[in-house]
């Protein structure tokens, strides 16, 4: 079906980045390798390369975000692109303009890429189906469905510390049910082929069907963390208490909160990750978040390089060397 290859052009190159699902292992590796080459850019005196000079990138965020929005903006600017930020809450969407009408209007201003974050699953796909042929779409998070750049920067971070994916036991702790980050991470880790993938949460937060994907489900943090190499904590949203999914933050912290004691159950060199923003005292203890095994802040830095890589790849300018020609 045509839709399946929406992300790829006829030559199999990345034209949009909408979801990790459907990407081959080598494509993910290529993105990580390209990101590697951009890490050094941020360390330079002049933190810019001219790869996307003259290109216009539109950040179309229908959902609030500081971290993702800022890193995408930084990434675009370091590639020398012009960045346009459309603040949807004050925009015509509130006046009743449809999503696609907004798109047409923005296209008329001749931009090259949309970075889209939306509260509904499938929004990025819908936009990708309706943009003009030369425009690329990057999904910065759609509903519960996917957040591919987050998963990629997480994989990049894991690779930096662990080198090989194959021998790893990775545990994702938290609200899998509502998490687009978890879904993308699960696709990435499965495609990259880790030894064991675990999800840990109360039953109300793990969809029943997850087990059929070959993932080990745990409802007990102690058992789930045993000998893990990587522990990924997910943020717990306050709405979950209202939705009769959890009794209280206190009980959640008691049962699934990552403390120094619990972390000892994992391997001694296990790394602790979190997509952010963190809820101290709810899913993670401050001592762990700020502790020696935490790579949370490094994830943010890596996010810039990974997003630079993705943007330049989909617009056909994948390497620094090429850009300097």
């Amino acid at each position: 079906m045509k839709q399946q290859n929406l992300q790829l052009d006829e030559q199999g190159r990345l034209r949009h980045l909408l979801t990790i699902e459907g990407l081959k292992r080598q494509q993910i590796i290529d993105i990580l390798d390209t990101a590697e080459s951009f890490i050094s850019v941020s360390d330079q005196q002049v933190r810019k390369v001219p790869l996307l000079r003259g290109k216009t990138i539109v950040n179309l965020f229908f959902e609030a975000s500081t971290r993702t929005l800022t890193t995408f903006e930084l990434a675009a600017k370091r590639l020398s692109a012009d960045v346009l930020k459309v603040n949807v809450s004050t925009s015509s969407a509130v006046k009743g303009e449809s999503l696609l009408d907004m798109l047409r209007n923005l296209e008329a201003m001749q931009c090259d890429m949309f970075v889209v974050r939306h509260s509904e699953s499938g929004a990025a796909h819908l936009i990708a189906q309706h943009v003009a042929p030369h425009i690329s779409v990057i999904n910065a998070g759609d509903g519960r469905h996917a957040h591919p750049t987050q998963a990629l920067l997480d994989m990049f971070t894991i690779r930096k510390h662990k080198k090989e994916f194959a021998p790893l036991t990775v545990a994702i702790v938290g609200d899998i049910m509502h998490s687009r980050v978890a879904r993308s991470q699960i696709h990435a880790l499965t495609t990259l082929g880790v030894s064991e993938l675990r999800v840990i949460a109360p039953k109300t937060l793990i969809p029943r069907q997850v087990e059929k994907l070959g993932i080990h489900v745990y409802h007990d943090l102690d058992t789930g963390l045993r000998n893990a190499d990587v522990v990924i904590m997910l943020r717990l949203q306050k709405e979950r208490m209202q939705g009769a999914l959890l009794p209280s933050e206190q009980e959640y912290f008691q049962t699934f909160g990552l403390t120094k004691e619990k972390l000892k159950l994992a391997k001694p060199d296990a790394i602790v990750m979190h997509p952010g923003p963190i809820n101290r005292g709810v899913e993670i203890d401050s001592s762990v978040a700020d502790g020696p095994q935490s790579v949370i802040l490094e994830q943010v830095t890596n996010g810039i390089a990974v997003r630079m890589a993705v943007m330049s790849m989909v617009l056909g300018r994948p390497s620094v060397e090429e850009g300097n020609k």
Partner: protein
Amino acid sequence: MRISILNGRVIDPANGIDQKTDLHISAGKVQAIGKAPDGFKAEHVIDASNQVVCPGLIDLQARLREPGQENKSTIAIETRAAASAGITTLVCPPDTDPITDNSAVVDLILQRASEAGYARVLSLGALTQGLEGKQLAEMNELKKAGCIGVTNADQPVSNTEVMRRAMEYAASQDMTVFLHAEDPWLAKGGCAHEGAVSVRLGLPGIPEAAETIAVARDLQLIEQTGVRAHFCQLSSARAIKKIARAQFDGLPVSADVAIHQLYLTDMDIGYFNSQCHVRPPLREQRDKDGLRNGVAQGAITAICSDHQPHDADAKLAPFPSSEPGISGLETLLPLTLRLVDENVLDLNDAIACLTQKPASILGILEKGQGGSLSVGSVADVCIFDPELYWELQPGTMLSNGHNSPFIGWQLKGRATHTLLAGKIIFGNTN
């Protein structure tokens, strides 16, 4: 006008007829099957060689968008589309705007339908006022205005006591209650079947239990109140099992299924194809198999289109906020015939699902108001070519709604003539 339809394969399941023979009509009624009555001289002859002649099709659920959503379509436009698809009677639910909970709205609908003159429209009245599930609707007034049943459409009646009293009251008015079984708490916020597909796509799910719990509750109340009830457009195999069990135990319940549920599953959503956003949602393969089984075994006696014509914008939104529904009038007949090719039913039973059985559910069969070709009954007739291949394309659809996941499908079987009360509404006058 006196019309003779000659040489067709006349299939009238209500009378057990399936043979190559002639049909003679005059004064809007069926006069004879086989030999013309003495002295009958046809003013118009239709040669139905190689075609099937059956009662006009009866569609148990079709939204005509009027009154209230004329931006999507009107009764005139949709009944015309129905006529071109061999459908002579349409049942429209009361979730119009204003709601069909008083005789004025019923009068409006019936008047518009008769002015347009393309098809018979039967209105279902509201079960509760405003469909709010709190106070009983004036069912007697609705019945006198012409409603052939009552329903709360897609709005839940969560208060069990209200549902019980509504059923009792309907029973005392000798009205059939049409039920849409969906537990509102479990279905809340959902837009797709809760299963592997919805989990993968991150779409809020509607668990199967939303349907089975509502069916179980309503079955208990039906048993308690003795009301005549019909379950509309069920979607899960488990629910059908419950219905079959209840029928076996002697409960007067019937059930129908929307034709698209017999062909599609949640896998067809693909990458957020909003044409597959329907309510109740497309479920899994085993549900599709269970529904087909239900049709074959008889727990489900009727098939409908669940027609919901939409404007283009309704589907051009992210899946969760796209509007559910398929424009289904024009695919009802060919897709039902395809079940015969796929060995789910034989041709007689398939036609019964679209004629005799829905007429019986509506209580119009015995009155000669549709669903059969009995002598003396109204001459609503569908003549179709069972071997005609065609492709569904938006450009040739007569409905205002082009929202269908069957666009591009190769279909077999198409109406060539439709008669309403003995008048040729659709078809080349050869």
